[in-house]
C-alpha cells in the first residue's frame, strides 16, 4: 500500500519523545530511503503513464495517475513533517538547555540540522543582545516568573565547592540540604546535582492553582 512507510515515519515521532539518530545506516535513515524509493517508483510510473496519455490519449489511465500523485504528495508531506518536528524539538532544546547541545543529542543530528541550529542560535543571540541596555537580556531564564528568590534544594551528588554571586563558598556534598538563591541553583538542578523540594503551605493550599489560573487569564486577555 502506498504511503504506509510515510505513516510509519510519523508514528515514530509519536513513539519516541527524544531525537533519534539520523545518520547513515540508522533505522530512520533506512525508513526515509524506503519512502523516497517509493516516491521514485511512483514518479516513474506516473511519467510513463502520463506519456501514454499524452501520446495515445488513453484516458483510462488518468485516475491511477491521480492516485499516485496524491500518494506522492502525501509522502512528501510526511517527510517534511518529520523534519519539521525534529527542528521544533531542537528549538525547544535551545530554550531549555542553552546554546550547547549535549553530545548524546549532537551525534544524532545530520549536518544540515547542525547548521540550522547554529544559525538559529546566532539569530536568537543577536536578538537578545539587542534587548536591554548594555549586556543584552537573557530571555531563556525565568520563563515563568519565580515565586521565591530562594529555593530549598537537596544535594544528590557530591559536587564540591560552589561560589555564590556574593563570594560565599558552599560545600555541596551528597545528602545535604540547602536554601540557596534560585539563579545559582537552576543550572545545577538541570544537571541533576541538586533536587528541588517544594513545600505546600497549609494556609494556602490552592495558592499554586490560583497563580496558574491568573497566568492563563493574562494569556487569554493578551489574545
Amino acid at each position, binding site marked *: 500500500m502506498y504511503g504506509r512507510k510515510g505513516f510509519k515515519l510519523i508514528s515514530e515521532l509519536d513513539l519516541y519523545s527524544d531525537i533519534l539518530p539520523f545518520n547513515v545506516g540508522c533505522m530512520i535513515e533506512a525508513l526515509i530511503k524506503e519512502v523516497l524509493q517509493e516516491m521514485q517508483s511512483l514518479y516513474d510510473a506516473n511519467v510513463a503513464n502520463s506519456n501514454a496519455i499524452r501520446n495515445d490519449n488513453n484516458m483510462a489511465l488518468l485516475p491511477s495517475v491521480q492516485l499516485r500523485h496524491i500518494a506522492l504528495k502525501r509522502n512528501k508531506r510526511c517527510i517534511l513533517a518529520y523534519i519539521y518536528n525534529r527542528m521544533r524539538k531542537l528549538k525547544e532544546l535551545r530554550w531549555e538547555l542553552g546554546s550547547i547541545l549535549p553530545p548524546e543529542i549532537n551525534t544524532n543530528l545530520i549536518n544540515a540540522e547542525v547548521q540550522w541550529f547554529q544559525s538559529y542560535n546566532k539569530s536568537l543571540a543577536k536578538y537578545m543582545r539587542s534587548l536591554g541596555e548594555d549586556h543584552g537580556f537573557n530571555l531563556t531564564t525565568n520563563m515563568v516568573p519565580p515565586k521565591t528568590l*530562594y529555593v530549598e534544594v537537596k544535594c544528590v551528588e557530591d559536587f564540591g565547592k560552589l561560589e555564590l554571586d556574593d563570594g560565599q563558598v558552599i*560545600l555541596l556534598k551528597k545528602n545535604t*540540604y*540547602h536554601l540557596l538563591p534560585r539563579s545559582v541553583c537552576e543550572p545545577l538542578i538541570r544537571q541533576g546535582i541538586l533536587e528541588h523540594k517544594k*513545600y505546600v*503551605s497549609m494556609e494556602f493550599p490552592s495558592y499554586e492553582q490560583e497563580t496558574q489560573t491568573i497566568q492563563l487569564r493574562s494569556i487569554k486577555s493578551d489574545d
Partner: protein
Amino acid sequence: MFVENLERGFYRLVKHDRCLLLVNFDVDAICACKILQLLFKYDNMMYTLVPVQGVQDMVRAFEENCEEVKNVIFINCGGTLDLVELLQPAESVIFYILDSHRPYDLCNIYSEDQVRILGKPDEDDEIPEYNDVFRDDDSSDENETDEESASDRSQTKRRRLNEEDIVKRAGRREWSEKRATILFNYTQYSYYGKSSAMIIFEMAWSMTKDNLDMIWWAIIGSTEQAILGKVESRLSVLEEGFLQAHVSRLTHKKGAEVDKQQQQQSAVKITYDKDLLLVLYRHWTVEDSLRHSVPTAVSLRLWSLRGEQRLKGLLADMGLPLAQSKQRFSAMDLALRQEFKQMVEKLAGKYKVDTIIGTSFTLQYGYKFKYCASDIVYAMLALIESSSKTKLPQGCFLDALDCLSRTKKDILESGIEKAKLMLKTVFKTAQTILQLKEIRNTGSFLYIIIPEGSAGNFIFAHPYPLMMLAQFTLKAYVDSSKNRRAPELPLVASAVYNAEERICIMIGIPPVCEDQPRSLFGRAFEQAAKNTNSYIDADYFDSTIIRLKIEERPKFLDALASLLA
C-alpha cells in the same frame, strides 16, 4: 550562656548570615529542624543542613562546612560536649545549641559569648555555681611562681613560706575535692529535657509566624519523647495541654479567615481526642496492633502460649470476630470500627490494660490523609533506622524529613510498613528472650544479649529498635518476675553492631520504678571502661549508648556489675 529570649538572642542575630544546621538523627531534632527551615524560608535566609549521626560525624561536618560560616546551630547534638574544645572554631563563629540531652556541659553553660544554649535552664538541672567549678586565678601558674620565689629566697624563710603554702594547698585540695563531688553529682545521670521542637515552636509563636504545620511538627516532636519514654509522663501530659491550646487557637484563627470557604476548612484539620494508644492500629489489623503494643503485650503476657489464648479471649469478649480482627482496620465492618474504641475501653479494666486509653492528636488532610501523631513517629523511627549497605544513613534522614511534609504520602506509607516490620522483629526477639529466660540478673542490673546471626536481627544494630526492645523486655520481665526487687533494676541490652569488625552496641535503660527517666549508665559505662582498660566508642550523643568490641563485652559487664553493686 543561656538565651532565654530566643527571638532577640537567636533569631534576629542569625538572620543576616548564612548558617549551618547540624541535626542529630532523632525525630524530635528533625521536627525542630523542619520548623526552623520553614522560618528560614519565610525570611529568605540561606542555610546548609547536614545530618550528623555521632560525635565524629559532627566534627567532620563542621570542618567541611565551617568556611565563612558565622553561625552554627546544633539541634539535639553537642550540648553535652565541650564544643569549643572539640571543634576549635575561629573566634567569630558562634554556636547555638538546641539540645534536649542533659546534662549540659559546664563549659557550654559558662561560655561568655561563643556558645549560646537556647532555652531556659530547668530547675531540675541543678547546675553548679560558676565559682564552685571554675577558678578564675589560674592555679597552675600560681604554683610555678610560688615555687620559683620559694627557691629564690633564703633558707631561713623557707619554713614560714611552707606553712603558707600548706594552707594554700589545703584550701585548693579542699576546693578540688568539693568540685569533684559537685561534678560527679551533676554528671551522674543522663536524661532528656524539653523537646527541641517545642522550644522552636514557642519561638515561632512569639514571633507570630506559627502555623498549623509547625504545631503539628511540634506535636510529633513531643510525642516521640513520650513514646520512647524520654521524659516523665507527668511532663508530657502538661505539654499536651499546652499544645492543645495552640491547636485550637490556630484552628480558630484559620477558621475566621476563611469562613466563607467551608471547603478549605476541611482541607487541614488537627484534632485532639480520646484515643487508644495502640500502635498503628488504623493502618494495621486489630490483632497485630494489640500484640505489638507494649501495654497489652505486657499485661496479657502475649509472648507465651497462654497469652495467645488470652488475646483470643479478649477479642471474644469484645465481640470482634476473629476473621475481622485479622484484616486491616480500614477494611473492617463500619459498625465494628465505630464501636471499637468503646469495646476496648469497656474491657480495659478487666484485662488490666488501662494505660492504652489516652489522648492523641490526629491530622486530617483531605479525605485520604489521616494520621495520628504516634503513627508518624513510628514511621519516622523506622525510616531513620532503615539504612543498609546500599543506602546511606543520611539518605534515610532526608526520607524521614520528607515524611513530615503532607505531599509525600508514599514515603510515609513506606515508613509505616517498615515500622510494622520493626515492631514485629522487636516482639519476636523479645518473645524468644523471654521464653528462653535469657535475661541475666547480676544483682544490681539485668542484661540481655541478642544472639548473632538470626534473620532480622540486623535492625538491632540501630539504637532505637534496641531501645524499644530493651524497654519491652524490661517491662515484661518486671511484670512476670517473682523477684520483689525487679522494678528497681535497670537493664542493659547489647546486640551486634558490625559482625565483620566484631563490634557490638550496648544500651542501658533506667529501671521501671523510677518516675524520672534518668539513667546512670552514661557515667557507669565510662567508669567500667576505665576499670577494665577496654576501649569504648561513645560516639552517640546519648551517652547511654556505646559501642565496644565483642571480645571485651563479658569483661566489661563484670566490671559494670562490680561497679553498681
